[in-house]
């Protein structure tokens, strides 16, 4: 690979989950004011889209930064299996005491995927609906690209 260029592989995954935005540090009124409908007591759900960006050298023998089957299996095991068709608040220990906003979801998914052994995780973008999305790049200064 020419060192003048940087290649990234982008892959999108989908899962559906419910959540409720509620903070134990806020009063009932404050929760209602801050989170609005998202504070409704029994939660609600979204079809989330997770965009994973990985960088690395392109192996001349395979033409790949990472084998998609390896990446798919890793994401399935680290994220999708635990998140899909679950309640983020009830079923994911990380959100027992942390509000499962999509900001926090991005960070949680980044932490889970940064140990992928075959490429470097550049950033995670999570789309909560077609109209809003969130990105997290950890300490990667180059992560904030369009």
């Amino acid at each position, binding site marked *: 690979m020419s060192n003048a260029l940087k*290649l990234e592989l982008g892959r999108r995954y989908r899962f559906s989950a419910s959540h409720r935005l509620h903070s134990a540090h806020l009063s009932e009124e404050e929760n209602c004011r801050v989170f609005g409908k998202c504070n409704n007591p029994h939660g609600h759900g979204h079809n989330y889209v997770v965009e994973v960006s990985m960088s690395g050298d*392109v192996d001349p023998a395979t033409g790949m930064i990472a084998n998609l089957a390896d990446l798919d299996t890793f994401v399935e095991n680290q994220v999708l299996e635990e998140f899909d068709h679950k309640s983020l608040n009830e079923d994911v220990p990380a959100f027992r005491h942390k509000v499962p906003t999509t900001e926090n979801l991005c960070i949680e998914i980044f932490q889970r995927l940064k140990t992928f052994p075959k490429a470097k995780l550049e950033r995670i973008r999570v789309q909560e609906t077609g109209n809003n999305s969130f990105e997290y790049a950890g300490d990667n200064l180059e992560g904030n690209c369009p």
Partner: protein
Amino acid sequence: MVLLTRKIEFAASHIYHNPNFSAEENRRIFGKCNNPHGHGHNYTLEVTVEGEPDPVTGMVLDLKELKEILEREVMQRMDHRHLNYEVAELAGQIPTCENIARVIWQLLEPKITRGRLHRVRLYESPDLFADCYRNGAGAAGKS
């Protein structure tokens, strides 16, 4: 600095096969992409150019000019072609998203003389794509 992006679509076929691998290795590494008669995709290409708008025209570069460059360099070369056998720049390479994106960068970069090529993003499907950047382009230069 302003970024402008033009999108085009083309359809092409390809196969992933490395003659240095055994049949079993090819099958294991490339899976369905190794099926002997190839297969195809509708590719979506997004080309992003960076630059300052010209004070007279208000343009980084004329979109018509970019459209013509994409037609000449990409569409005529790749649309309704077999990427392994009909695109000389990909000869001897596995035509993955990563390699095609890099070849497209190399084709376009010298042709874009107003503004500067910023990013090539090639989608093989809505869920799989590759980005090609100039190495070391920092966050400020990318956003």
